């Protein structure tokens, strides 16, 4: 391998490395930032996000905690109230339910009750497709999306993984940052990141592909499935599909959503989480309430079925939304 080729691969980082970089840079920038969670110290995190950080920052800023999500999140709230900027890691996002009360009853309402801001980030690996079964594949966004007082962001690319996490750490509100474990080391997502400091603002969607005929609203790992489907639709059906990556679920980018819907007049919503009461339900309600007369076809959703996440690989493959399912729904919508 030539020296220059080596250099290129080294400069292109993974989605996971982008998350590590964001934590590292923010801890360097601001002494109030610290990381706490299960196995984040000595072991370097279950997915190695915090490898080497204990050595670099010491045990007061990289804190190995007992196996209690409620204690991790509760401690983070306390620290945030005292002016710190904690990053609380959930080893798998499925276990965030053990800290549910702390988030719903404390973190999200604290500023409203006391006027004291709670600048904290809760982050962890979410999503399926990794044969993780019912306790290691959750997409928990809808529970928190429903709760006023907490922001929810879902990065789909390496650039956004870093920029959104930095923005989340600098935000003065509790932010739930949902990384997707399937994307952690995906070679296609390797990307060269800017050397200088940057953020991706919370509350701003991005158009990943422009189109005329259908808008797809999506986020997280599904962005890549949607882009794949959009490519096929262009090649085989001559349809121009616009793909909007929401990036932030709370707050939603109302303007981007409505502008695109007004442009294409047909909207398909895709998410990995289960269908009923999901993010797509709220998006559909917004479109029906505000843009009814702009719609040229039914608002359509592609999501996981309302069932627990299966373990058997064949069942998992059938359960998860994918480019094929998106393609079928888009074709039906286009023909409507």
């Amino acid at each position: 391998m030539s020296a220059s080729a080596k250099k290129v691969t080294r400069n292109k980082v993974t989605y996971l490395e982008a998350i590590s970089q964001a934590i590292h840079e923010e801890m360097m920038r601001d002494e109030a930032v610290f990381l706490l969670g299960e196995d984040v110290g000595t072991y370097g995190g279950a997915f190695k996000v915090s490898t080497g950080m204990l050595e670099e920052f010491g045990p007061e800023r990289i804190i190995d905690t007992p196996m209690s999500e409620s204690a991790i999140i509760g401690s983070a709230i306390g620290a945030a109230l005292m002016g710190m900027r904690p990053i609380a890691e959930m080893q798998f996002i499925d276990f965030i339910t053990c800290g549910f009360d702390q988030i719903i009853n404390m973190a999200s309402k604290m500023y409203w009750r006391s006027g004291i801001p709670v600048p904290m980030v809760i982050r962890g690996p979410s999503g399926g497709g990794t044969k993780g079964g019912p306790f290691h594949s959750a997409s928990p966004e809808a529970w928190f999306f429903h709760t006023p007082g907490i922001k929810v962001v879902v990065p789909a690319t390496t650039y956004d993984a870093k920029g959104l996490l930095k923005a989340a750490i600098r935000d003065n509100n509790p932010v739930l940052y949902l990384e997707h474990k399937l994307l952690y080391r995906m070679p296609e997502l390797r990307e060269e990141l800017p050397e200088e400091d940057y953020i991706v603002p919370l509350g701003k969607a991005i158009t990943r592909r422009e189109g005329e005929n259908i808008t797809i609203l999506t986020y997280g790992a599904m962005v890549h499935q949607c882009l794949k489907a959009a490519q096929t639709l262009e090649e085989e059906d001559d349809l121009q599909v616009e793909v909007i990556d929401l990036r932030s679920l709370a707050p939603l980018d109302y303007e981007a959503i409505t502008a695109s819907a007004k442009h294409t007049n047909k909207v398909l919503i895709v998410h990995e989480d289960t269908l009923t009461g999901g993010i797509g339900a709220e998006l559909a309600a917004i479109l029906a309430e505000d843009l009814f007369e702009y719609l040229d076809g039914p608002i359509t959703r592609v999501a996981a079925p309302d069932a627990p996440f299966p373990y058997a690989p064949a069942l998992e493959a059938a359960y998860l939304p994918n480019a094929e399912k998106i393609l079928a729904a888009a074709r039906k919508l286009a023909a409507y």
Partner: protein
Amino acid sequence: MPTPVKMPRLGESVAEGAVGAWLKNEGDWVEKDESLAEIITDKINAELPSPVAGRLAKILVKTDETVPVGADIALIEENADVSASPPAKAAPGADGAPVKSPAQAATPVIEVNRASAGNGASATPRSPRVDEEERQRISPLARRLAQEHGINLNMIAGTGAGGRVRKEDILAYVAQRQATPASAPRSPMVTPPVAPAPTLPRPMPEPIYAIPTAAFAPSTTETGEDVEIVTPSRMRLAIAEHMVRSKRTSPHATTVVEVDMTNIAKWLEKNKEEFRRREGYSISYMPFVMKAVCEGIRKFPTINSSWTEDNKIIIKKRINLGIAVATDMGLVVPTIYDADNYTLAGLAKLVNAVGQRARANKLTIQDMQNSTFVVNNPGTFGTIISVPIINQPHAGILSMDAVVKRPVVIEDDAIAVRSMMYLCLSFDHRILDGAGAGGFLQAVRTKLQSYGREIDMY
């Protein structure tokens, strides 16, 4: 005594207008400022608000008829019989049969003359009409578009699943109606005033009058498989007429300067996102150039003038900058009034607002009048030098082209990479000479190059 409604003046160079559609029927009650009709002129389409409240007594000008500005187009009876109260919100359906909901009112029936039969059958729980309604499938968007264009949905065959009428069907029908001079009969339905969809191109009506220009004398047009004959829209014809007239009126001369935009480019690169997030609208090179143009005009006021037909020069004290905006339908040049009174952020906001209105086809009469000088920005299309044609009756027009990085020899004979832009001024040589035009351009350039690394937007 009925109050006459007059054809409004929509734009200063506009002498006549046509009624695109009556939004009220004779006998209808209208509130003051309620939309009465859709007026179509060379430049913009606008809804005409009623000057008074009353009953629309008589329509004097038919749909698609062109009349001079100021002509009476309708009469409104103000002291209408009080006992005749305004009609109920739910208007009768197209067939005159009673309806139970607005949706039903808007649903066309297949046979218009069912009215008489319908009266006796209205008590029947399942009248044949319900079946017809189920058969006629229409998307919400298609329904709205049909109303806006005054289209009877019976005229349209749906191509969607199950024969559903959808957007493409309406747009295809409108395009076809445009191409056929004898336009299809309009629906008798009362069309409520609905804001136009910003992203859909509005259909242009058939050209109603000929442009009185030798350049447009009828020519023998070859037809055949190798060519396609396009009838230009009214706006296209208006632009064509204006361009020929301008070239004939003003002896154009063009001069170009090169401006170093490096500091502004760097500032934009660094602050654009943040500005947009903070202010809710974006900023580009445009406000910087506008600001510099105002400064140039202050130093060389004759740039902001007009040559009159009786050979005088009118120098205008207000600086109202027209900015060229490309829309789906063609070029429009809305006005930013008193541009010299605003900060860079203020100009950015106005440019943004007027651009949005232009693209949404929502420009007002005010937007289209009183400009004194035009800044054109073809640079957004990547061009590097453009020679613009003057917007009459101005003395000049400035084109800003793309800001591109070029190797440039700087002060100490070193070569550096700088962000450069050409500014092209076309001017009326009757009013200005090269010295005046060059002086103005120098002033604009000096202002643009005076910005440092930190720029105060407010």
